[in-house]
């Protein structure tokens, strides 16, 4: 097991020359003030946190910064503190490196290693969209190589007496060199997924991941232990082969029921064609069956799993770099995909299933709310003001640019949802997107015109704060009082970033007029 502090894994050799223990510097030489960091593009977003790629100026080293809005962590501050302490006591090559954390106004900034390869979930999505995955997303060697690294990280957690609680492809990140690290340890309850490309995140609202949950966790058995991670690991193994968690099609309650009542899932559980995953080996199936035993005591430990014959075929990170990264989407937004943009529905590509429905059922992390009664298409016609909402003359963006948005709004159960979508300038229309959000059951039909108007306004005059809050026509439930700050009777629309139509490098979202920052800024010599 790696035990030595490996602080030179970053991009810069300057790291080791920094003075240790300065007054505002943590032990490993990471500064604890916002001025030392240059924030770049958003790389992930959740209900209480955003993740940015950043540059640590004095170290001349890239990093990722999670900015957690502490005002939204209402009662669990102490829990959050504990989990960050636990994270900083982790030091393993398969666990995302924590560098430091500090408070900036009402935000907690968590500085961690930047893993530019994105998550395996991103890569799976990309493959599913671009390749024929009927017989599996990844070959067995790739799967074994990834899973072995994940197991080494899990073994470390478990030896430390820690439980990850959210093992899934979305939390397995890849470094540019093909290294594999587990992310979001501990803070997963507070911080949304990290590393998802924007496009990928479009499909997410962060309502938990029941598909990966062990039966004993669902039953809320008191004091479930690290064996719950082994279950999730088994589900992740299926996900890496088939591209989906076994019950990804079902809403959360149904997933709970299926997991508790049915036989444990296998590679074939989600199969649509007979024998489509036939070629996966017995050794692989044995690993999955052993991990997915309902009795947690029967599941092997991470250490035991590492000795399984399945892992005899592993290769090195160079192999992963070739098989996963050289054809993958990368962490940043992928180049505009011509095949999907030719979709006659125009704006819906980020949400749609292959059949063009806005149902979200495709996504294993999203639990689809029941569709509303309102027929959105009728609403579109009746309102009549749904001409193209875009004024090209005044728009600060140029045609073909893709703007990432997130609409934060309460669903019928009054839970806050983050709905991510992209808007292609010159192609999409604000009101058409609003209508699609309604027909997908994500927005109340009564809010058609206000959502459309908000979107149009934001496109025409991007707010300096990146975000606007606007009142909803649908108002509040009988027992609620409208409140802007808690989004009762209000919704919030945020511009995540702008992406040129042709490139992979996103433009910083709050400085649209500036040229995109180079991926490798000029080195700044530190004292």
């Amino acid at each position, binding site marked *: 097991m790696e*035990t*030595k*502090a490996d602080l030179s894994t970053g991009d810069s050799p300057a790291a080791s020359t920094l003075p240790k*223990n300065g*007054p*505002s510097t*943590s*032990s490993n030489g990471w500064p*604890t*003030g916002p001025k030392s960091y240059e924030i770049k593009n958003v790389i992930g977003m959740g209900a209480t946190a955003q993740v940015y790629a950043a540059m640590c100026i004095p170290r001349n080293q890239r990093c990722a910064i999670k900015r957690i809005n*502490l*005002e939204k962590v*209402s009662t669990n*501050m*102490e829990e959050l*503190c*504990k989990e*960050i*302490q636990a994270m*900083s*006591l982790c*030091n393993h090559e398969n666990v995302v490196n924590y560098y*430091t*954390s*500090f*408070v900036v*106004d*009402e935000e*907690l900034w968590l500085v961690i290693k930047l893993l530019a390869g994105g998550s395996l979930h991103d890569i799976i999505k990309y493959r599913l969209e671009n390749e024929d995955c009927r017989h599996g997303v990844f070959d067995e060697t790739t799967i074994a190589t990834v899973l072995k690294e994940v197991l080494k990280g899990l073994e470390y957690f478990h030896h*430390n007496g820690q439980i990850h609680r959210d093992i899934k492809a979305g939390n397995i990140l890849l470094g540019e060199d093909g290294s594999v690290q587990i992310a979001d340890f501990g803070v997963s309850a507070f911080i949304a997924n990290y590393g998802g490309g924007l496009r990928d995140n479009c499909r997410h609202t962060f309502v938990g991941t029941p598909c990966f949950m062990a039966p004993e966790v669902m039953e809320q058995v008191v004091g479930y232990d690290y064996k719950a991670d082994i279950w999730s690991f088994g589900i992740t193994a299926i996900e890496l082969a088939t591209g989906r968690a076994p019950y990804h099609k079902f809403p959360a309650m149904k997933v709970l029921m299926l997991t508790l009542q049915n036989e444990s899932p296998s590679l074939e559980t989600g199969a649509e064609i007979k024998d489509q995953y036939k070629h996966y080996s017995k050794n692989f199936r044995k690993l999955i069956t052993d991990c997915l035993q309902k009795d947690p005591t029967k599941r092997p430990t991470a*250490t035991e799993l590492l000795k399984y014959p399945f892992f005899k075929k592993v290769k090195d990170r160079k192999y992963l770099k070739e098989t996963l990264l050289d054809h993958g989407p990368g962490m940043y937004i992928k180049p505009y995909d011509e095949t999907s943009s030719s979709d006659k529905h125009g704006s819906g590509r980020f949400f749609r299933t292959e059949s063009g429905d806005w149902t979200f059922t495709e996504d294993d992390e999203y639990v689809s709310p029941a569709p509303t009664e309102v027929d959105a298409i009728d609403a579109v016609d009746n309102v009549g003001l749904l001409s193209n909402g875009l004024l090209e003359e005044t728009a600060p963006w140029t045609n073909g640019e893709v703007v990432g948005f997130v609409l934060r709004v309460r669903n019928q159960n009054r839970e806050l949802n983050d709905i991510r979508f992209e808007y292609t300038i010159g192609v999409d229309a604000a009101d058409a997107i609003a209508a699609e959000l309604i027909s997908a059951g994500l927005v109340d039909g009564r809010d058609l015109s206000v959502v459309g108007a908000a979107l149009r306004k934001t496109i025409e005059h991007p707010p300096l704060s990146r975000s606007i809050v606007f009142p909803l026509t649908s108002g509040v439930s009988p*027992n*609620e*009082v409208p*409140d802007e*700050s*808690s989004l*009762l009777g209000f919704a919030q629309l945020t511009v995540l970033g702008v992406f040129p139509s042709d490139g992979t490098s996103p433009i910083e979202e709050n400085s649209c007029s500036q040229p995109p920052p180079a991926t490798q800024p000029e080195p700044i010599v530190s004292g």
Partner: protein
Amino acid sequence: MLSFFSKSQKNPNEIVRSLKDGLVSLERNDKKPEKVSEEVSKLLQSTKGMLLGAPEQEPQTEIVAAQLAQEMYNQNLLLIILQNMKRVDFEGKKDAAQIFNIVLRRQIGTRTPTVEYICTKPEILFLLISGYDSSEVALNCGNMLRECIRYEALAKIILQSPDFYRFFHYVEGSAFDIASDAFSSFKDLLTKHKIIVAEFLEANYDKFFQHYQKLLDSDNYVTRRQSLKLLGELLLDRHNFNVMTKYIGNPENLKLMMIMLREKSKNIQFEAFHVFKVFVANPNKPRPILEILVRNREKLIEFLTKFHSDRTDDEQFNDEKAYLIKQIKDLKAISDNTSS
């Protein structure tokens, strides 16, 4: 179980001595520090294994644990470990902290021999506190420190020492993980042992609240929010009745809470409410407090009526709010009576 031929499985006396030698050698920084560091980490790991059991090691009997502890006292090993904590590698530090905590929890009947031992070596506690000065050991030391604070005798030593006031500095540190760890130790010190804390607060009221004021005024959002919350908990604890009475008799404190009720942060407003309510609910309000409340009567009623009105599901809060509004409404009569 112990094999004479295995170098790594020594008896308790040998292992403690080897550890001590290794640590002293690290301190002197003599020959091959990497090699020694590696050896020290191995020794720590096998010591932990002796106490806890490990994958290929059964936990040892009570007799071995007792021998190990006794030898640690004799050799002053706990102190030597702490003095050299910085020189131990990452995993070794965690093992060291775990060993410390296991040995600390040892019981013989109702006696806790390690606690008794530390009472005779209070420098162990002060070393742990100063661990917050160096970030590479801060969290490990914090872990051990909170384990110590669970014991009244040890918490009392800290409360009675000038070192206690160092916490006011540590909880405001710029690194969040360390500052928040220091805050949890600080909070444990002030909440775990009610009787000695009440005595301490009464005896050191002025000095303590002078320092505490700085936390409430801090620029750091987290410090402000956490210290305000803790203040509420301290004042509402029955054991601290005298301290509460003194605190809510001071009009400056009332003014501060009224300012904090209007902070931008909803969470801070909410915590301020829980301190503010004590001033209003006090049946024997001193005159200066009464005057402030009466002077601001209309504004307060209006403010409170709208205050966090979205918290519809929090029944207790709404009851308390309604009670405060009623109390403030009734204030006028009192002041009329006194003035006429």
